[in-house]
């Protein structure tokens, strides 16, 4: 039996790369997971099998228990091992304290193994060994759909680096549709290379959850901080240019792009078709490529909150040929850049609507020449967005569409305190909240309090009194879950719009 898809692996800063580190709950009779601990549950130096092809592992010193079924034992030659194929073997059966059954024979064909070192349980120490074959004590064991659990320091958004990389690393290849998942726990584990980019080449079949990666400097172009779908991750550009994520990004936090010569990338800059940025926060971007860049890789961005981003979104390339869209995002600039900069040929079926664009030099920039199928001006005119406090609302062919909202008042509850939920101010939030979606259609003219709002959905932490408190404060960004325990308020009523009366 080979390593199964249900296997998971554990890594801790206090672990050891000779530990077992693996547990597979899919193995019949799986017992206790001993991997989330620094030391192995059982450490042996006399592991043996009787003959080539034998899966029965024995140890005179022993100490096996039935609860160890499902755990991996990492077998190495140690000082006196023989006939061993180094590797990670799962315990599938318990015979006695001196004998267990492994998922496969550990020998190299030269006869039974003897004198081998084996550790059951305990976490590894190095992330790097799971993603590269360089200097590993064993061939990396992960197969598609395995989970690699990485323990953090307990801090949500740590400054200190938990797992420094000495050089860039290259991902092993797994099934794109059955990716290996790198998942952080106990806070957000923080990975950083001392200098230069972290990864080399795009990943194939890797995904990330609750991981923080910080740019070590250098170009960091051509390689994003997350080279696979990322969920609730933190990508800190560390004031360098480059890309944060090149694949799906869900509820992620992107920080501190520095612009410059490599600032032509977006914080979210899709590498391949069909990637979505959903409900992420982009904060402090100086990149000319914007927080969100939708181009040749046809993608969408929905429900994102972009704060102090010199440029909000860039739509370019051939993104018009497919279902590109930019919906319900809130872009807040520094007064110098462009909120949405559209240079692409895009189509009617692409909706770039319900966005809030605030505090930009140019709100929406469009080309000055028409496209093939229809004027750019008219194309953008089919969309609807809200602009506030922009020096120039529109440049290029498109001017205000019939459904655009030019806000005359700040639409946010308290932006200075990080609360970007919509207020009820006339000319501000009131213009773009609770909108009746069928007011033009006979019989559907009643406003409702539950109708849709524009901009990013604001998940406001609810104070004990029930009122909303601030959302974005200091380095703590809370519109995405899991980073902070507690209740959140989704404003307005959770779904579904449209809700109406006739």
């Amino acid at each position: 039996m080979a390593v199964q898809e249900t296997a998971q692996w554990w890594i801790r800063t206090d672990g050891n790369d000779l530990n077992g580190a693996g547990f597979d709950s899919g193995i019949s009779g799986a017992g206790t997971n001993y991997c989330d601990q620094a030391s192995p549950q059982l450490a042996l130096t006399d592991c043996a099998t009787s003959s080539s092809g034998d899966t029965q592992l024995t140890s005179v010193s022993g100490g096996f228990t039935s609860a160890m079924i499902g755990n991996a034992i990492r077998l190495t030659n140690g000082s006196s091992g023989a006939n061993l194929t180094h590797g990670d073997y799962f315990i599938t059966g318990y015979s006695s304290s001196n004998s267990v059954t492994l998922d496969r024979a550990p020998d190299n064909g030269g006869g039974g193994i003897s004198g081998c070192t084996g550790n059951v349980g305990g976490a590894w120490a190095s992330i790097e060994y799971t993603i590269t074959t360089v200097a590993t004590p064993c061939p990396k064991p992960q197969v598609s759909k395995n989970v690699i659990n990485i323990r953090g320091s307990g801090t949500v958004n740590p400054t200190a680096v938990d797992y420094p990389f000495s050089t860039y690393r290259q991902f092993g290849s797994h099934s794109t549709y059955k990716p290996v998942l790198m998942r952080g726990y106990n806070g957000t584990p923080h990975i950083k290379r001392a200098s230069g980019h972290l990864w080399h080449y795009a990943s194939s079949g890797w995904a990330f959850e609750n991981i923080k990666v910080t740019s070590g400097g250098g170009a960091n172009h051509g390689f994003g901080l997350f080279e696979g779908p990322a969920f609730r991750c933190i990508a800190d550009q560390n004031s360098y240019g480059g890309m944060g994520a090149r694949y799906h990004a869900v509820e992620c936090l992107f920080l501190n792009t520095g612009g410059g010569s490599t600032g032509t990338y977006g914080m979210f800059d899709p590498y391949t078709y069909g990637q979505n940025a959903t409900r992420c926060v982009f904060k402090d971007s100086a990149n000319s490529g914007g927080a969100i860049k939708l181009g040749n890789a046809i993608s969408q961005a929905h429900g994102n909150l972009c704060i102090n981003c010199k440029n909000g979104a860039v739509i370019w390339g051939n993104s018009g040929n497919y279902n590109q869209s930019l919906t319900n995002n809130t872009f807040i600039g520094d007064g110098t850049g462009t909120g949405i900069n559209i240079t692409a040929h895009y189509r009617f079926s692409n909706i770039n609507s319900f966005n809030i664009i605030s505090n930009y030099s140019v709100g929406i920039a469009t080309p000055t020449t028409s496209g093939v199928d229809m004027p750019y001006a008219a194309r953008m005119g089919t969309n609807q967005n809200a602009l506030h406090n922009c020096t120039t609302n529109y440049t290029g062919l498109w001017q205000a569409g019939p459904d655009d909202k030019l806000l005359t008042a700040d639409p946010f509850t308290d932006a200075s305190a990080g609360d970007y939920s919509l207020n009820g101010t006339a000319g501000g939030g009131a213009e773009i909240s609770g909108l009746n979606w069928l007011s033009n259609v006979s019989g559907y003219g009643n406003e409702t309090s539950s109708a849709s709002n524009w901009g990013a959905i604001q998940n406001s932490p609810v104070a004990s009194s029930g009122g909303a408190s601030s959302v974005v404060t200091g380095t703590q960004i809370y519109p995405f879950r899991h980073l902070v325990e507690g209740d959140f308020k989704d404003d307005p009523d959770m779904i579904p719009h449209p809700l109406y009366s006739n």
Partner: protein
Amino acid sequence: MTSPNGPILFNSTTGSDSAASGLGPSVALIGSSAELDGTSTVDMSYDGVSLSSISVGDLLFCDTTSGRKFSVIASIDTINETITTDDTWGTESGVSWAVGGKRSTFDHADSRLLFTSDAKAGFTIITESDQDLTSAILRGPYGTSYPYITLGGSGSTLKTLTATGNFNCITQAQNNSMLVYNLKFVGSAGNTSRGFDGGRAAIIKCQFGDDGAATNHRTAVASSVYSGGIQVRNTAMYGQGASVSSGMGVHSTYYAAKGVSVFDCLIKDFYYGVYSNTNGFQLTRCIIQNATIGTRGNNAFGVDSCIFSSISSDAIVAVKTTYDEQWPIYQTGTVVFTRNIFCDVGGNVFNGSNTTSAFSETELGYGDYVTCYLYNASGFTGITFPSVTLTADPFIDATNSDFNLNTSAGGGAVLRSTNYTLGE
């Protein structure tokens, strides 16, 4: 090209198809003795009419015997009483002409030229009255494309286009594009046609049919040509009933079309609410009510914050394709798929022909984002979404299309923001 001064106006009650261009002075300047010499300059001097009230950007109508009849005015010579237009004309004498006023009917053969051969990019055609059609407004046929135009109704109430026979109200061939705004589409009893068909289009703030009417089109909107793509927004679509097997609210039918995006729409009384044969679509904040199948897709598609109410068979059908194999949602590509509400569903809430192989949203910790809220609805085939079963109807009166949330415990109260907890 000279930019038009404004919209080209139609009014079937007060307008004229023989003595108005639709854009220019409110009271049309007319004559009957224009001289066309094969250039872009038209000589009106034989009529002795002052041209001083005409402006650059107005529209000239010349009732020629063949060829062009409309062109935007580029310059006016009030001394010699000539008008120069953006386009050249044929050679003809004693031609009736008009600038300004309002055209009367979309149905008039001359008026149809404004949609086709005489159209200019950016034309906006507005009707102040309802319009009856004896044939489809055709922007085609195949192989012929015309510039992008906008077509709309004036004022705050929808203006109705009525197809008096079994034909589409508007048909666009490949590579034609238009924006449709503030219009209502009505067909004839028992028709097998579409309200809007083909091309690239944005259909905004419109209405297709009426609730329960016999004259509703069998299909409201179809994206049916190569490279087509349609956006439908803030629009109500009423069909001929859930049992009419070929009836579809929105239909993306051509293999090489670019799909459809449907936002903030009501889709009621169709066999399929939304059906896409081979290309992707996005369905956001829509209500699909009284359908046999709520939505069916053979490609990547997103269903985002929608209500499915009174669906006799399956609410969502995902037919096996390579895209289906890429589920869960985050792998399906350019779609947004979030929480939806399903009430009174006779078949499956979700019926997929394949199972997901990657980590599910639940495994990735955000399963609540794709939660299905179920009242008198169940069944997941292929992919099992996270779900919450409501113990009470969440809506005030769904039967009568009032989908406001009620405050019932186990019903609407569950869905209200004050009771919804996102945190773990």
